């Protein structure tokens, strides 16, 4: 097969797959089946296009191919049903596949339904993430496996089980309304941010960041913001991720080592993404969403983004924003971040007192950033022996090899009586 056509098909698939799966899911009311049918259409394209060339409207071609397979499928299952004299069952459940609807008409609604279905709370977080990457970002099982550093069969099984769970729980292919909407939207945003974070600071493995995953998450969040333009938290998440992504290149040194926010070369921040992030945040705030959890986190990220130098950072405002965030979603991790801001605004003693107050939190047990932050405060206070111990402890708690190296280097750089002046 000529590889040029193959790459062209891949590109078309990247653009069209979610829409095709979404359209088919509305038709069949079965997300699992819809994805299988879409895959069959892809296989057909892989067989035909290398000879016939890529059609003028490849999306319509794929949709038509998938739709034909759906018709075949239902004819076939109707035959089986007739044999078993169960033909009444389907109408009892009030469902007959809808083949006549113009799929292009409501493709936006279908996409939104697909997002809500793939991120349904009935599924585990891992299952939601895998299914979302598969159905909405068009990633292969192998790509998802590499993204999460798990074996391919594990991901394949996760997806099969997720589809089964959705079918068994009779999850409707619809956009939730009323009171349910808030919780369901939170579940969607959680999955997108999880995918982003897995790319932004990989929890395990050799690479500190995997930018491709960040781009997938950003793309999906931008799509969602177009589909649900009145939801401030969607814009808040977009803003947060745009601003965080603006630092992607500055977060890694020449040999792949992590560079923390305060040490980053700000000229390497991506100002196009910063601008996009700030404008999304502004829209979220105009919609009255300034105090949403993602909008607040975006506002904190925006404080850093606006400061051209570390010294210009408005740490007092950041402390205030963390205060609001801690009220909204009290968590030891938020407290830890707040302690860092407090230390910057009011001195390391203040920060250390806050960290010590939360040090025994069970949720922070084994969390490498706790000793890492504590070590930083102790170093600034000149308590170098204690600081070294904390950095070493932090190194023993993370699985990311780049981060381990960074922490051990920091520990090794501290000698009693020798104050490192930066």
């Amino acid at each position, binding site marked *: 097969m000529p590889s040029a056509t193959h790459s062209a098909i*891949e590109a078309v698939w990247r653009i069209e797959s979610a829409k095709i799966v979404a359209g088919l899911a509305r038709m069949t009311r079965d997300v699992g089946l819809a994805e299988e049918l879409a895959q069959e259409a892809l296989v057909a394209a892989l067989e035909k296009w290398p000879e016939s060339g890529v059609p003028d409207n490849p999306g319509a071609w794929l949709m038509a191919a998938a739709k034909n397979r759906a018709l075949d499928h239902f004819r076939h299952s109707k035959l089986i049903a007739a044999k078993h004299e169960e033909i009444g069952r389907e109408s009892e459940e009030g469902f007959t596949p809808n083949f006549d609807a113009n799929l292009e008409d409501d493709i936006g609604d279908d996409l939104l339904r697909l997002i809500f279905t793939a991120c349904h709370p009935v599924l585990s977080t891992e299952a939601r993430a895998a299914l979302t990457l598969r159905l909405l970002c068009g990633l292969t099982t192998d790509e998802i496996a590499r993204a999460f550093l798990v074996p391919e069969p594990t991901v394949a099984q996760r997806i099969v089980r997720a589809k089964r769970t959705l079918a068994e729980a009779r999850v409707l292919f619809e956009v939730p309304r009323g009171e349910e909407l808030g919780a369901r939207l939170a579940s969607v945003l959680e999955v997108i941010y999880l995918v982003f974070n897995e790319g932004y600071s990989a929890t395990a493995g050799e690479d500190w960041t995997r930018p491709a995953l960040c781009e997938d998450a*950003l793309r999906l969040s931008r799509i969602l913001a177009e589909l649900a333009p009145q939801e401030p938290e969607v814009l808040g998440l977009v803003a947060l991720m745009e601003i965080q992504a603006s630092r992607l290149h500055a977060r890694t040194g020449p040999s792949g080592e992590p560079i923390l926010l305060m040490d980053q070369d*700000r000229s390497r921040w991506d100002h196009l993404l910063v601008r996009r992030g700030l404008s999304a945040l502004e829209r979220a705030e105009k919609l009255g969403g300034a105090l949403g959890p993602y909008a607040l986190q975006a506002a904190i990220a925006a404080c850093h983004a606006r400061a051209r130098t570390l010294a210009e950072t408005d740490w007092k405002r950041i402390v205030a924003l963390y205060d609001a965030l801690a009220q909204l979603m009290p968590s030891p991790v938020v407290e830890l971040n707040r302690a860092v801001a407090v230390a910057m605004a009011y001195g390391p003693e203040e920060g250390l007192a806050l960290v010590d107050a939360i040090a025994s939190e069970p949720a922070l047990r084994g969390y490498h950033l706790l000793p890492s932050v504590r070590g930083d405060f102790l170093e600034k206070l000149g308590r170098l022996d204690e600081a070294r111990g904390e950095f070493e402890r932090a190194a023993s708690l993370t699985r990311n090899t780049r981060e381990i190296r960074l922490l051990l280097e920091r520990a090794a750089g501290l000698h009693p009586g020798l104050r490192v002046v930066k």
Partner: protein
Amino acid sequence: MRFMMLMIPKGYESAKPGTMPDPEAVAAMMKYNEDLQKAGVLLALDGLHPPSMGARVSFAGGKPKVTDGPFAEAKEVLGGYWMIQVKSREEAIEWAKRCPGSENEVIEIRQVQEMSDFDEKILPPKVRASAQAIGDRLARKSKKR
């Protein structure tokens, strides 16, 4: 990865000042822009006034020399650009193919250089640092104002 889709409309090199595209073409293009936006790939876009309203600064002999537009020697000029973020060069091409371009229009696709494309030789840390210092000074000035 990021790509610029550069729109090159033949004839724009000699277009009169204030020339605007016809409303039908604008409507089709707006729809296309919307599709890019809805797909989450559009980062930025702009349309450019004709070169007859612009100027060129050349540096022959190491000295800047200004020439007002239109530029007699120009065979191809830009009419506008899109900046998109996509998975591959093929995806950028696929998006360009969907543009409702007219007979006289050509889209050139070019990958945007990332900071990481610049190794230490091209942009040594010293240069980077001085770029940062300029930014800092500007920031301080604008703050004082």
